[in-house]
């Protein structure tokens, strides 16, 4: 046969074996790359837990590892949400902790005394390797092994996934993405084979997913949508029935074993879609069975009436139950994905989180570089041969890109799908141009997809359109292939360049953007050398060493987990923002005057107040910048005590200098942030806030109810101690005036009679 270039003659078996060997090696290398590229954080900084939530997971894991699973399950944490406490066992997704707990115990069984912290730090990279493998399997089902390898490579190093799985970011997503992909793989497999085994396995991994991440709702809705679409496309088959029913029956029951999820799968709207499809499948299956035994005429009207009737009953029942409050309507967090204005209006806490902001296009490109435009091409290719699994990818692409657009953090769910379809596109390009066959001779390996797709295509595309004609005509003509070597070369070379560019990009992004453990900050000295700013740990360890075990620390909720994790002190609120009122209370205390705040602090037994202040070195993520959110949240609860406009200048500007509004200047947060700030600059030349770029008044605010306890090296963390009540029962303001020797103005006996108006 005529080939574009001479092929070494090797026996097909040899080729096969080498291919599989190469595949294994490639996968191994990909895993290595995936893990390695996530270690920048450890190299640049140190082996430390990152950010906020991971600190809680780490703490919980320690409990699990030291006290065992049942104790963890029943763990009541009295130091969180003081004094409400938190029933941790019932309010976490234990999957992550359980996983590292198991690993920890196994290693110790093998006499490998590994520190639990290192396990937690390295869990995410480890699982990223598994994710690569899962993606490989998944894509293999879509196209073939080569596409699979590409996809694995993509997901292995694409920043969109690395951003949440660098070493040290010990968060649910770390393992969730692997579970997501593997569940999908099993699901596809189950649909393809119609095997209850794969269905059950999918259910098991779904259970793992539910135990690991709140994002399981994505699976809960993706799979039913897929099944429904297939049915609407007239592709119902007993295989679908077997796969879906075995998945749903076991999956739903198992998901309810997770205490945090509880009865939601039968009580909330997020899960009702799956239930509905389940019911529908039963009807359709019965109809099919009936059809086997009846003339089509009878069958038609029976089927028609029964489907209509039962469908109506089902819908009515759903509405009724929702109306009776048996089924909870969409939860706010979920709802805010559809009505994008909803969160800001009704759940400011959610809106205040930075990773819940919508995504601008640069972050798409930053995270997915060339994949983002290969992705549509891949989707088109999926349409070309429209098998059941391709339908899945298409739906995934649609839904995923919408969600990723709405919330930055959901970029994570889009990434795998992008990798898969991009890989499909890219590998089919390479296939075309590497395929040695020349078009003159009748093409030998009319690739499997093409054949398989024909019936599918003809089955669906009853209505014919121009594009169809083109494609089919081309297919008919059969002459498919590339004639000349140079064209092949340029394409291959081009592709190679693009891929290497992608690698460069990913490496750069990972090392520069996504590897900083926001606990430790890095800054450049004049000579370009790196200077580590370690104020947070400095302050937290100060708390740990200089305050009694039981002293309650109040701070804005962002720092709750870190205080609990590093300082080991009770906190009022933390990053598990389940109680709006409690958070609003803290917001109110921060936003109101000392006199108003003091009773609140005393009532909650607060002994230390911690604020983050970046004004000195220009750390922009400080509390003054978050202050408006505190105001808003507390305004939501006490609209007539706290009003956002009062914190702006009459011109509607948010200022901290001498033009700042009186309310702003008297607020506890302002006072705590700028206390003694002017003195630092010698008072003479005005103090400069490097974040707001505003000059502070030369006299700094005074504090009557708090004492400055600690201020970190760069003033990022400032800790204040709450004074006790005056033993003589005076208000602390006048008590201080007395101790400072100020004369009290002479009073005289007052009339005790007040007339009734």
């Amino acid at each position, binding site marked *: 046969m005529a080939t574009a270039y001479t092929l070494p003659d090797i026996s097909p078996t040899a080729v096969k074996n080498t291919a599989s060997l190469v595949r294994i090696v490639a996968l191994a290398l990909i895993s290595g790359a995936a893990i390695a590229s996530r270690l920048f954080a450890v190299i640049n900084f140190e082996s430390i837990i990152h950010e906020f939530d991971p600190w809680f997971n780490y703490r919980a894991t320690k409990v699990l590892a030291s006290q065992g699973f049942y104790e963890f399950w029943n763990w009541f944490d009295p130091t969180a949400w003081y004094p409400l406490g938190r029933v941790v066992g019932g309010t976490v997704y234990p999957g992550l902790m359980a996983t590292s707990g198991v690993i920890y115990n196994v290693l110790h069984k093998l006499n490998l005394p590994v520190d639990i912290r290192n396990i937690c730090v390295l869990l995410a990279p480890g699982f990223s390797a598994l994710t690569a493998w899962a993606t490989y399997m998944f894509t293999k089902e879509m196209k073939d092994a080569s596409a699979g390898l590409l996809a694995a490579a993509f997901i292995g190093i694409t920043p969109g996934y690395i951003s949440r799985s660098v070493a040290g970011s010990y968060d649910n997503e770390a393992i969730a993405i692997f579970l997501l992909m593997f569940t999908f793989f099993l699901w596809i497999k189950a649909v393809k084979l119609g095997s209850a085994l794969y269905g059950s396995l999918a259910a098991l991994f779904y259970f793992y997913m539910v135990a690991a991440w709140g994002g399981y709702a994505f699976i809960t809705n993706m799979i039913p949508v897929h099944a429904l679409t297939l049915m609407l496309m007239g592709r119902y088959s007993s295989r679908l029935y077997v796969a879906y029913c075995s998945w749903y029956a076991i999956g739903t029951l198992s998901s309810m074993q997770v205490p945090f999820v509880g009865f939601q799968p039968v009580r909330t709207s997020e899960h009702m879609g799956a239930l509905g499809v389940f019911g529908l499948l039963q009807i359709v299956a019965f109809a099919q069975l009936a059809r086997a035994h009846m003339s089509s005429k009878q069958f038609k009207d029976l089927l028609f009436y029964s489907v209509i009737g039962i469908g109506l009953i089902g819908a009515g029942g759903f509405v009724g139950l929702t109306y009776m409050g048996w089924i909870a309507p969409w939860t706010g967090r979920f709802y805010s994905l559809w009505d994008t204005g909803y969160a800001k209006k009704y759940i400011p806490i959610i809106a205040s989180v930075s990773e819940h902001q*919508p995504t601008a296009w640069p972050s798409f490109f930053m995270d997915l570089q060339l994949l983002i435009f290969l992705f549509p091409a891949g989707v088109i290719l999926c349409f070309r041969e429209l098998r059941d699994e391709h339908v899945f990818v298409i739906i995934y692409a*649609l839904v995923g890109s919408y969600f990723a657009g709405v919330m930055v953090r959901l970029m994570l769910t889009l990434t795998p799908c992008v990798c898969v379809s991009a890989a499909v596109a890219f590998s089919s390009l390479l296939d075309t141009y590497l395929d040695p066959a020349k078009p003159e001779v009748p093409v030998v390996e009319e690739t499997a997809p093409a054949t398989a797709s024909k019936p599918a295509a003809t089955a669906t595309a009853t209505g014919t359109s121009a594009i169809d004609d083109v494609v089919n005509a081309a297919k008919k003509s059969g002459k498919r292939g*590339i004639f000349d070597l140079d064209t092949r070369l340029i394409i291959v070379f081009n592709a190679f360049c693009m891929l290497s560019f992608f690698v460069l990009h990913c490496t750069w992004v990972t090392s520069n953007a996504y590897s900083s453990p926001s606990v430790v900050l890095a800054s450049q000295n004049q000579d370009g050398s790196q200077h580590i700013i370690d104020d947070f740990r400095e302050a937290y360890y100060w708390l740990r060493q200089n305050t009694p075990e039981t002293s309650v620390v109040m701070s804005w909720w962002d720092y709750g987990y870190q205080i609990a994790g590093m300082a080991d002190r009770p906190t009022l609120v933390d990053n598990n923002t389940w109680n709006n009122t409690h958070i609003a209370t803290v917001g109110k205390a921060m936003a109101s005057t000392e006199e108003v705040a003091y009773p609140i602090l005393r009532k909650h037994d607060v002994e230390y107040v911690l604020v983050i202040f970046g004004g000195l070195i220009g750390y922009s993520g400080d509390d003054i910048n978050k202050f408006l959110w505190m105001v808003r949240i507390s305004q939501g609860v006490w609209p007539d005590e706290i009003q956002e406009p009062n914190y702006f200048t*009459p011109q509607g500007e948010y200022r901290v200098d001498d033009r700042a509004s009186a309310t702003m200047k008297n607020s506890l947060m302002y006072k705590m942030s700028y206390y003694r700030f002017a003195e630092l600059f010698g008072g003479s030349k005005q103090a400069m806030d490097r974040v707001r770029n505003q000059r502070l008044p030369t006299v700094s605010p005074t504090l009557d109810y708090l004492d400055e306890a600690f201020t970190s090296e760069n003033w990022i963390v400032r800790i204040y101690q709450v004074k006790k009540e005056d033993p003589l029962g005076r208000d602390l303001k006048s008590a201080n005036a007395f101790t400072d020797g100020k004369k009290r103005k002479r009073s005289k006996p007052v009339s005790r009679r007040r007339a009734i108006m």
Partner: protein
Amino acid sequence: MHWLPALLLPLLVLAKDPQLELAELAEKGNGVIKLTPNTFELLTSSNRNWSAAIQLTALDKRRRCEPCKNFDPSWNEVAQAWHKVPKAERDNHFFATLDFDDGQATFQKLGLSSAPAVYIYSATDGPHAPASGRFGPHKYDFSSGFEAGPLAEQLSRHTPIPIPYSEPFNWGKLLTSIAGVVSFLSLLRWVGPFLQNKWVWAAGTIFTSLVMTSGYMFTQIRGVPFTGPNGSWVAAGYQNMYGQEVQVISLIYGTLALSFLMLTAVVPYQTSPGRQRVQVYLWTFVIMLVYSVLIALFKVKNRGYPFRLFL
């Protein structure tokens, strides 16, 4: 009853009671007083036993103030709603509108740099004067959007009695949706085959995902303008963009995807080597070019980005 003296006063004194005057003005502009600098002074005079909510806006075309246009209708709705309350209470609170072009001086006096803004002056004496002694002007914060509902709700805190505003039921929406469904069903026969064609769906899917991945939702949620003030269409800053960028970016993505498809799906079916070669080079060139443009754009957004392609 507070308005009795207000009504009797003119009979006793020759000078017209400002409150009555305002009431008439409000009557004229049914519910909303169209302010001039003088009437503004009158309305916000230091000793007033009425409260007032003033919308400071710039509705003139030349000002190109989109938010002003969006907000004005809901303002008028609320004013109408207030106009419905019995005269006794109505004349204790006034709704007024001052346009930038009528009272630039006033805007400067208030130090207003942006429109629209709503200032609320509560009564300084008389029964409705607030006990707190904070007479305003309070500034209405638009954090809850331009809708009439929240506006009425928040203003009601300052009016003598709550504003009897109720969301008008949106019949139009209902009807259109019903009509849509009906027409769809009726057209189903003709639309059907069209819907069954997978390439239609493909087009839809591709379009959606392209638009989404070019930050369309960002522009929607943040309500960013289509282009910048000085006609620039690329917003500086990594987490920021204008409406036009969506189009450009999705076009770029589309082109790249298309050329890949061409190389994969169409070029191989060429029968003559010559044409095939031409096409291959053509599409490769297109990819290189557009990709470089994309990178260049990204460098604009993200200054620190070290890489560049041919441009």
